[in-house]
């Protein structure tokens, strides 16, 4: 089983304007979701609660950070960066299954229970589903990881 690690120094690789872009798009998408719900009703508005708000910005950041790391040791990390972004996208796919679980819990039970307990509960359901799927997947051989390792060596 792969170990999960926290590397706080990664935050230093993110430039202030990159944090600002995420904040702006995060805020914008939240406002847009509310406006869509007001204009078209909760049916369409709800779709936007699962909008890939900052996915393009995050994928692009991952690619550029990998490229910079490789550039420091004098090699072209373009391909490696793009494969790393591909891995990130596959991780996000597992998170999406958790997202369905999150929405299901709130859809079924928020009406009859305390909302301030149900919202964190649904977030826990997201985390458990996403982590479980990731752990199952982490034990399988992966072509992308093998390709990354080959490039790294």
């Amino acid at each position, binding site marked *: 089983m792969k170990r999960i690690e926290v590397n706080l120094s990664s935050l230093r690789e993110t430039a202030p304007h990159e944090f600002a872009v995420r904040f702006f798009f995060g805020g914008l998408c939240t406002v847009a979701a509310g406006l869509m719900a007001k204009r078209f009703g909760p049916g369409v508005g709800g779709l936007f609660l699962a909008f*890939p708000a900052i996915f393009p910005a995050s994928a692009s950041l991952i690619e550029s950070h990998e490229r910079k790391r490789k550039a420091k040791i004098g090699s072209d990390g373009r391909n490696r960066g793009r494969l790393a972004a591909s891995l990130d996208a596959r991780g996000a796919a597992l998170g999406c299954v958790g997202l369905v679980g999150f929405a299901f819990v709130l*859809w079924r039970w928020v009406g009859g229970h305390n909302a301030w307990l149900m919202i964190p509960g649904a977030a826990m359901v997201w985390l458990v589903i996403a982590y479980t799927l990731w752990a199952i997947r982490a034990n399988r051989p992966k072509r992308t990881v093998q390709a990354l390792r080959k490039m790294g060596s």
Partner: protein
Amino acid sequence: MGTLFMRFLIGGVVVSLFAALGDVLRPKSFAGLFGAAPSIALATIGLTIHQDGKAYAALECRSMMLGAVGFFAYTLVVAWVLRRYRPSALRASLLLMPTWFAVSLGLWLLFERRT
């Protein structure tokens, strides 16, 4: 206007926090999970319940499941295209965004309008 500004601030903070979590966590496939965290929903559901009630929020969450299926399809397509053709991540993720709209709205037209 005040509510919109509040949504903007809360949304910006929550989305940024999840993105920062994704930055610091390793391995990348695990960090990727946080790219599909319920950040917009967490930022907005509380406000929706407060303003429009629980029944309205529950309806939004029912649709959110379809949006999440669209997100799932979108990430799989982006991952495949990045691995197969190696375009820039930004270009691939932006140009493939219609996948989310097509799957989400398609499913909504299929299921939600019937009910």
